[in-house]
C-alpha cells in the first residue's frame, strides 16, 4: 500500500542533483523580475515594444472580444506604418509618424479574460511577467476592468480600459495607472434623460429591471437620478439574477404595476433575453395610463443587439460610438476596418483602437514609456479626430469627456449592420460632472 508512488534510487539521486542546481540558481530568479536599468517595469529592450491585449476570447462576450482584437491588430498595423493609416490621419495630434512608437516597432501579445476577474488578472500577469508587456488594454466588463486596473497599478504598468461602462472604473475604483476612453452610466443618464423626456413626456412611471451586480446598480442609479429630475416617477426597481435566462417571471409583474416605461439595465446576453421576452409579452403593444408603453435599454451594444433581432426596433438607448457617424475620423476608421475585415467595427472595437492610439501618442509626446511621465502627458490632453468630436482626457479622474450618442433601434435597417440610428448627439458640456461626484482617489503613479 505504502509504495504506490515509488521512485527508484537512481531517480532520486538525479532529482537531488537538480534540486541542488535549483537552489544555486534561485537568487537569479528572485532578482530578475524587477531588474532593468530604466527605472520602470518592462522597459522595452531592443527595437520592439510589446503591448498586452487582454480580451474575452471564451464565454458570452467572445465575439465582442474578437472585435476588440481586430481593432487592436489594425491599430498596431497603423502605428507601424502598414495599411492606410486609419485614424492616424485624422487624429489632431501629429506626434505619431507611422514608424512605431519612439522609434520602436510595436509588437503585441494576447490573453483571454474569460470575463472573470481572476482569469483576467492571471492573463494580464502573464503578459506582464512573462511576455514583457508594457501596457495592458481591453476587456468588456466593468468588474474585469476594475480588477485588471488594480493589478496594473500594483505591477507598475499603464492600463488602457476597453469597454467598461460602470462609474466605478474612474470613480471610486480609479487608479493613477488606469485610463478610460469609454463613457459611463453617469453620462448615459445625463444624455438619455432629456431625449426620453422629449419623446415620451415628463409624466411617466418607470419600472426598472436591473442586473443584480455593481454595473447594473450603477446604471439604475444614474437613470433614476436623471429621469426623476425631469419629473418621472420610479414605480419599482427590481433586481434580476445575472444570467437569469428566462425573465418571464420578472416581466409579468410589470403589466400590473401601473408603470408605462420599462428600463432594462441589462447588458450582453441578459439584455438580449430580457428585451426579446419583454417584446414577446406584448409590452410594446400596450396602453397604460392612456400612453403607449415604452421600453428603454440605456446601454446599447450593436454587436449584442443583433441577438435581439427585430425586438430592438425603435428602442432608445445610448452608445459610445456608432459606425454610421459621418465625421472624418469615424469614416476613416470604418473604411480601414471594413476593408480589412469586411464588416463595420463595433463600439468596443472603436474604443480599443482609440485607446492604443492615445497611448502611443502619449508615449511619443512624453518621450518615454515610463508610466508616470506617459500618464502625465495624457492628463488634461485635448484631442480631436478620433470619432467623437473634441475630447478631453480629464486629469482628475483619467476619464475621457466627449459627446454622447443617443440612439434608437433602426426602424428600416438598410443592412444587417444597420441596427442603430443616431437620434441625438448630446454635447460634452451637458454630460460633464465634477470629479468629486464619484469619489475615489487616483493615488500616485507606480512605475514598477
Amino acid at each position, binding site marked *: 500500500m505504502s509504495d504506490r508512488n515509488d521512485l527508484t534510487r537512481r531517480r532520486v539521486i538525479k532529482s537531488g542533483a537538480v534540486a541542488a542546481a535549483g537552489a544555486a540558481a534561485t537568487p537569479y530568479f528572485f532578482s530578475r523580475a524587477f531588474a532593468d536599468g530604466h527605472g520602470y517595469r518592462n522597459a522595452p529592450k531592443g527595437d520592439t515594444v510589446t503591448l498586452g491585449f487582454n480580451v474575452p476570447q471564451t464565454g458570452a462576450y467572445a465575439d465582442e472580444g474578437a472585435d476588440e482584437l481586430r481593432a487592436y491588430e489594425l491599430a498596431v498595423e497603423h502605428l507601424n506604418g502598414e495599411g492606410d493609416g486609419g485614424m492616424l490621419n485624422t487624429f489632431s495630434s501629429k506626434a505619431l509618424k507611422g514608424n512605431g512608437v519612439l522609434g520602436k516597432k510595436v509588437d503585441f501579445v494576447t490573453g483571454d479574460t474569460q470575463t472573470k476577474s481572476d482569469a483576467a488578472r492571471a492573463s494580464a500577469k502573464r503578459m506582464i511577467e512573462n511576455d514583457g508587456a508594457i501596457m495592458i488594454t481591453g476587456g468588456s466588463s466593468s468588474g474585469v476592468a476594475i480588477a485588471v486596473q488594480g493589478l496594473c497599478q500594483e505591477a507598475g504598468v499603464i492600463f488602457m480600459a476597453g469597454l467598461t461602462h460602470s462609474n466605478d472604473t474612474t470613480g471610486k475604483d480609479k487608479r493613477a495607472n488606469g485610463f478610460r476612453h469609454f463613457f459611463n452610466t453617469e453620462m448615459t443618464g445625463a444624455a438619455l434623460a432629456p431625449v426620453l423626456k422629449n419623446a415620451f413626456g415628463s409624466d411617466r412611471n418607470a419600472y426598472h429591471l436591473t442586473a443584480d451586480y455593481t454595473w447594473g446598480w450603477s446604471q439604475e442609479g444614474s437613470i433614476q437620478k436623471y429621469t426623476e429630475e425631469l419629473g418621472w416617477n420610479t414605480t419599482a426597481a*427590481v433586481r434580476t439574477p445575472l444570467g437569469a435566462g428566462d425573465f418571464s*417571471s420578472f416581466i409579468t*409583474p410589470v403589466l*400590473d404595476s401601473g408603470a408605462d416605461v420599462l428600463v432594462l439595465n441589462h447588458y450582453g446576453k441578459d439584455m438580449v433575453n430580457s428585451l*426579446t421576452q419583454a417584446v414577446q409579452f*406584448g409590452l410594446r403593444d400596450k396602453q397604460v395610463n392612456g400612453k403607449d408603453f415604452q421600453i428603454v435599454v440605456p446601454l446599447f451594444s450593436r454587436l449584442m443587439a443583433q441577438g*435581439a433581432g427585430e425586438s430592438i426596433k425603435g428602442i432608445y438607448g445610448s452608445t459610445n460610438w456608432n459606425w454610421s457617424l459621418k465625421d472624418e475620423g469615424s469614416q476613416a476608421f470604418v473604411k480601414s476596418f471594413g476593408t480589412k475585415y469586411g464588416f463595420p467595427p463595433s463600439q468596443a472595437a472603436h474604443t480599443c483602437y482609440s485607446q492604443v492610439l492615445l497611448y502611443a501618442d502619449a508615449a511619443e509626446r512624453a518621450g518615454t514609456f515610463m508610466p508616470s511621465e506617459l500618464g502625465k502627458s495624457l492628463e488634461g490632453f485635448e484631442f480631436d479626430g478620433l470619432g467623437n468630436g473634441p475630447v478631453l482626457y480629464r486629469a482628475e479622474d483619467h476619464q475621457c469627456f466627449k459627446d454622447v450618442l443617443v440612439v434608437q433601434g433602426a426602424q428600416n435597417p438598410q443592412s444587417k449592420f444597420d441596427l442603430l440610428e443616431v437620434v441625438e448627439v448630446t454635447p460634452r458640456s451637458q454630460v460633464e460632472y465634477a470629479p468629486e461626484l464619484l469619489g475615489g482617489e487616483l493615488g500616485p503613479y507606480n512605475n514598477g
Partner: protein
Amino acid sequence: MDALFLQVLNGLDKGGAYALIALGLTLVFGTLGVVNFAHGALFMFGAFCAVSLERIFSTSYVTISETEKDFLGNPLKVDVPYIQEWFGSGTANFLQDYSVPLSILLAIVVMGFVGVVMERGLIKHFYKRPHADQILVTFGLAIVLAEIVRHYYGANPIPQQAPEIVAGAANVGNWFGLGDNVVYPWWRLVYFVFSLIVIGAVFAFLQFTTFGMVVRAGMQDRETVGLLGINIEKRFTIVFALAAIVAGVAGAMYTPIYPPDYNLGMEFLVLSFVVVVVGGMGSLGGAVLAGFLLGILQSFASMNEVKSILPALDQVIIYLVAVIILLTLPRGLLGRQGVMED
C-alpha cells in the same frame, strides 16, 4: 390573483423545458446507467438545428445592385434566397416563417443520428466505468461540441422568430375572465403544450410498446433482462437516441424564447441535474414532477412580494429546494433506494 395566475403560467412554461431536458437525462441514467454531462450540449445542438434550418432557408446567391450602396459606399450586394428562386416567393415565405416548428423534423433526424453515433462510438464503452469517468468524458465531449458550434456560428446569441401567426401575446385573461392585464406570449403557450405532448409520447412509448416494456424492465433490473436473452445493447442505442431526440426538439422549439448561443448547454446542465436528482435519479415521473415543481417555485420566488420578505430568494430557490427535498426525502421525490449511492 392575476399575478399569481401569470406566475403559474411562467412556472409551467419553464417547467416544461426543465422537464424535457431532465426526462432524457434520467432515461439514459435509468436504463444505461450513464451520467451524461453532454446532455445539455444535445439541447444546444437541437437549438442550432433550428438556426441551421433558418440559415438553409435563407441561403442565397448574390446579385449586385445597380442603385444601392453598402456601408463603405461600394455597390450593394443583394441576396436572393435559393428557395425563393426554386419554389417562388409564396412557398419561400411560408418556409421561412415556419422554420422553427419545421426544424423539429430536422432535429429528429440529426439528433437521432448524433445519438446513435455518440452511443456506439463513445458511451457504450463507459457502461462499466466509474461515474467519475463518465462525467469527465461526457463533460469533455460537451466542451468539444460547444466549441464546434462556436467555430461555425460565433459566440453571440442568434435570434429566431416564431411563426407570424403565433407572434405577440394572447389575452389569456379574457379566457378565464381575469381582465385585460393578463396576457401571455402565444409561443410560450405553444411550448407548454408541446412539452406536454412530447412527455406524453415518451410515456406512452414506454408504457404501451413491447420495446418500452423491456426498457422499463431493464430500468428495474438490468441483469435479469440480460439473462433472458434479450438483445439489450441495441435497445440501449435506441434509448440513447430517443433521449437525444427529446433534448433536441426541446432545444429547437425553445429558440424563439431564448436566442441560442454555443454555451446554452452548459447553462442548462447544472439545473437539469438538480431537477433529475430532486425527482429521483432514474425516475421518469420524478423528473417531470420536479421540473414543473422547480419551475413554478422559481417563478413565485421572483415575485416582488416574496423578495421584499426574503431578499434574493430567487437567486437560491432551486438549490434551497434541492437541499430540503434531499434531506427529507433521501432519494428525491420518486426515486428508488440504492440508485447512484455507491
